[in-house]
């Protein structure tokens, strides 16, 4: 089961007593603010969770995997996420409970 915006809004409604419309708007706004910051060349640091950073990639040679034809991959900017220490530890604890 994946966590979605609807689930998150529902919990804001339950936990904080916001009405459903307010809860839904806050969830939307949260993700929109993060997108806007990244779009405006800002990294986003959410302590306890992790950091969203931007990386600029230079152009590099690529290939169409189907035809083998060479096509350059243009310079582009990408978003990366580095989980924070606290999140990593919580997730590792989950691994410890799984028999692999």
């Amino acid at each position, binding site marked *: 089961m*994946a*966590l*979605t*915006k609807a*689930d*998150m809004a529902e*919990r*804001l409604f339950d*936990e*904080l007593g*916001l009405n459903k419309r*307010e809860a839904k*708007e*806050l*969830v939307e*706004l*949260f*993700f929109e*603010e993060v*997108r806007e*910051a*990244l*779009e*405006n*060349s*800002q*990294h*986003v*640091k*959410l*302590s*306890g*969770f*992790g950091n*969203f*950073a*931007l*990386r*600029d*990639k*230079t152009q590099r040679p690529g290939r169409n995997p189907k035809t083998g034809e060479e096509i350059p991959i243009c*310079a*582009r*900017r*990408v*978003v990366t*996420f580095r*989980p924070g220490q*606290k*999140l*990593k530890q*919580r*997730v*590792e*604890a*989950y*691994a*410890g409970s*799984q028999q*692999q």
Partner: protein
Amino acid sequence: MTDDSMSSMMKSELIEMMARKQSHLAYKDVELAVKSLLEQMSEALATGDRIEIRGFGSFSLHFRPPRAGRNPKTGDAVSLPGKYVPHFKPGKELRERVNQSIQKSE
């Protein structure tokens, strides 16, 4: 190539931006909401669930298999158990908006 000269938005600034746009809500409520959202997301991953936010991206766990490591002090071989690490895959809208910004800034 991460550009370290880029500025950062911290959690407190994110809360302020949101509170300014939702001026009918108390600042405290916006703060509690952001903390709840991050807690819900951490909790989901900590229990092995994915997070799927259309237009933003998805978070999932990647498994790192067990491997042989060494104690850097003593040089002794130690076996490191497998573990899960959080992984983020940006969604289409986020990818496109961020990539457009590079063209604008040049």
